[in-house]
């Protein structure tokens, strides 16, 4: 049984191995998470990001591409 707060070295090693074995895994996990949302929830997530971004940079990005 895992001790709460204890570092699980084996789990960390496995997580790092998986990240290196599949560089797309993180992006895929973000996509899978969003595919579980409704389009309205996806739009709200974008708006939430922009509110956060503009709280840091009220003038918007330095460059627009």
């Amino acid at each position, binding site marked *: 049984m895992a001790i709460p707060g204890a570092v699980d070295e084996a789990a960390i090693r496995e997580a790092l191995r998986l990240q290196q074995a599949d560089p797309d895994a993180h*992006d895929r996990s973000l*996509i899978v*998470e969003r595919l579980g949302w409704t389009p309205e929830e*996806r*739009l709200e997530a*974008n*708006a939430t990001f*922009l509110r956060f*971004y503009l709280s840091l940079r009220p003038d918007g990005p330095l460059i627009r591409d």
Partner: protein
Amino acid sequence: MPALQADEIFACLGRHKVSYVVIGGLAAVLHGSPLPTLDVDICPSREPGSLEGLAAALREMDARIRTPDSPEGLRFACDAQFLGSLRLVNLVTRFGDLDVAFEPSGTTGFSDLEPRAVVMTIKEMELRVAALGDLIRSKEAASRPKDQRSLPLLRLLLEEVEKRRREPCS
């Protein structure tokens, strides 16, 4: 810079009965892309009634032409005739930035994209969102650095969506 209120832009376009397809980064977000976007991109119909509606909607949103030198944008005579003469215009509105592309790269415009567009409901509004395959096709054709950056993620998204279509219970 005004915060993007995409739902207000869609509501205004809807009130003025504009026929359009959502394209670009926000269309990708609506399909499930995790890449955030700062603006709304649309591909409107060139049908005269829709162009009249688009002009009225843009006037209601106080749309101005975006330029690097003037953050508040440039006023312009916003009518159907002027809009009909354009291929692309980048606008700033009171609800945030809106890019209007009549012929997105790699497509011939609304009549090309609309048949495959996916209908999505946002706040009780039915939006036509360009198909993911069409978004990829357009970005491949445009091939700007920003398109090249987003393409791997869009292809990954398409792969995941197609996998779910093949295996609906997974």
